[in-house]
């Protein structure tokens, strides 16, 4: 029973963290049609900033988390203005540029903190909630709650504000949105900042739990791409549903069988979705 409870909790936490990363990726793809391969590195930067501010500068965890969000948002803005804007008509160029940013951020992390893989971030919620014989680690519960709050806030932002309408309009038809007076440049910057800050928030939330290293973004970006392909490219609802399905599946297979088998099975599921549901769980089919 303990293992089932543990696995359900671990699944919920993995789903929450994956969803935060994946919806950011889906947002940028939906709005800007950019496949941001550096998104995993923004997650990594979020974890590094959290470590630096909380451990090196010795401010507490929450200011560090805010700094991680702000810093990654700033990187997102720079990426949009300095790179994507100039390559708006060249999607392949954008893709290559994101791979370049990925390498730059990894190297910057190496330069900044070395390859010391033992950067430790203390959780503000150490220990575990003991219910009968079950132990529910507080920080994992915190990650789940924080991710849900962030996703609800994002939903409100996209559904209930002028900015959200503009983003959705741009995602549906960029030219039509432009003709309605929506500033493509402004919305692109905002979307990129939002996307990057979600990745940074995920990195900051997970920093006390996972191994912080310059390469920690790689498995995350692979998972995020699997998830947004499963969910339907550009669909944020699809990304959330697929995050829950994929992370639960992955965690259960990792626990009950093997994590290598889980990784292979996850890719097989993505292939199956591409073959049998090419537009994903929530994506829209396009007529050619």
């Amino acid at each position, binding site marked *: 029973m303990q293992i089932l409870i543990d*696995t359900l909790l671990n699944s919920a936490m993995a789903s929450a963290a994956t969803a935060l990363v994946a919806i950011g990726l889906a947002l940028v793809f939906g709005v800007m049609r950019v496949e941001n391969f550096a998104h995993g590195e923004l997650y990594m930067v979020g974890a590094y900033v959290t470590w630096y501010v909380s451990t090196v500068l010795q401010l507490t965890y929450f200011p560090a988390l805010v700094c991680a969000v702000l810093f990654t948002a700033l990187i997102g803005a720079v990426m949009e203005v300095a790179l994507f804007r100039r390559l708006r008509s060249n999607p392949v160029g954008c893709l290559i540029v994101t791979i370049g940013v990925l390498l730059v951020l990894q190297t910057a992390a190496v330069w900044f903190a070395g390859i*010391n893989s*033992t950067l430790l971030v203390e959780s503000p919620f150490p220990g575990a909630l003991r219910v009968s014989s079950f132990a529910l680690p507080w920080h994992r519960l915190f990650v789940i709650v924080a991710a849900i709050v962030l996703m609800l806030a994002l939903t409100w932002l996209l559904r209930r504000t002028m900015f959200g309408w503009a983003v959705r309009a741009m995602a549906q038809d960029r030219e039509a949105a432009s003709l309605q007076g929506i500033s493509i440049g402004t919305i692109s910057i905002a979307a990129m900042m939002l996307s990057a800050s979600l990745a940074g928030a995920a990195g900051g939330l997970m920093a006390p739990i996972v191994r912080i*290293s310059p390469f920690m973004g790689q498995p995350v970006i692979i998972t995020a791409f699997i998830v947004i392909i499963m969910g339907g490219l550009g669909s944020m609802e699809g990304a959330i549903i697929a995050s829950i399905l994929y992370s639960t599946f992955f965690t259960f297979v990792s626990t009950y069988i093997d*994590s290598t088998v889980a990784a292979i099975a996850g890719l097989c599921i993505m292939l199956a979705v591409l073959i049998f549901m090419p537009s994903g769980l929530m994506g829209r089919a396009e007529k050619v």
Partner: protein
Amino acid sequence: MLRSSSRLTRRHVLAAAGATASALAMPNIVRAADPKLRVGALLPLTGDLALWGVPGKNGADVWAARTNKAGGIVVDGVRHEVEVVAFDGAYIAEKTLQGARSFIDQEVKYTMIIGGDDWSALQDFSNRNKLLTSTLYVTDLNPDAKYLLAPVEVHPLYFGCGAEYLRKVEPKVKSVALCAQDDLTGRVALAYWRAGFDAHNFDIVKDEYFDLATTDFAPVVSSLLASKPEAVCLDTAYPSFALLLVEQLYIQGFKGRILHAGLELLPDMVKRTSVEFMEGSITFFPRFDDAAISTSAVGFPDATGFYQEVEKTYPGGWNNTSWEFPACLEVWKRAVEAANTTEPDALLASMKANPPEHMFGPAKWWGEDLFGSNNALVGAWPIVVVKSGKVDIVQMSNQAAWYEAHRDFVVKRFEEEQLMPNQRR
């Protein structure tokens, strides 16, 4: 017009060519008179394994400084200073090979690597160029590796003694769960642990590999603990993996002994769990401020002084490789002085005829049975146990004797993993 503007004659061209050739040849001429003996640290100075490479290189630098201060290395009556040349192989095949090429150009006499994937990249090059190399992974040895030595650590040979020690101190413990990262290091080590637990009547209730890309270790530990083990063996999980595994064991309520190759991040483990939780954990690498080190590491001159100098030069940078690579150098130094040569073939022949003293005392060449090559220098090895948040040497164990007594268990488990010399590709 063209002819009148050019003042370049055939004589000028010949003179220039001669001067260029002389200039290019000059470094070698200069080096020929250079009394320094160069040793190479071909280690990952960046990348995940820099945690082992950087302290190893720093330790080698301190060893070289101390050796030079004590008079250097005497070859044929001539004193030579020793110089450590470092190259960041990053544990990447191409870079490791690039480093080996540069070592040949710099006339490096002896090269140190971590072993594993970097040796796979080097073997052919080493054979062709007679690059005498030391590894920390005895499993790199094979019949075709002519210039490879395992002169200090014969990982994972000491794990059998670890299982024996666990049986000695925990006679009632029956069940053990094991895990390791899914790579060659993990598989070889886990095979040896399994043999150790088989030999000492433990039930292996869970045995799993985790993917190298794993970031969250909670599912791995949940899986281990579901089998209700009384002891958990973390094999040779890389330091940062081991830290997160230990933390999860603590959070998920494990109560029992933990076994791990190095417990490199013990202070952080204690910080994230508790002194009580880590108490009694079994590992294999002593600290050099342990009072027992001077009587255990008899083959390492002034071990305590060496530790203090490394700590002074690189504060907080000490770990197990800080002494392992210097210990490799110490074995080489003794062999060179005994053989009066650095020429690889003659040196190897001399070393084989008269095994140099090992870090932990007298040793013998071993390995033919399991690896197809007798190039492992096997001596005693310490078993250390965590007491009050620090590791203490509790006994010296005879690795080769353990293997001889339990050979069948090892062979069976190695065959399962396709690790025997006739099974390897």
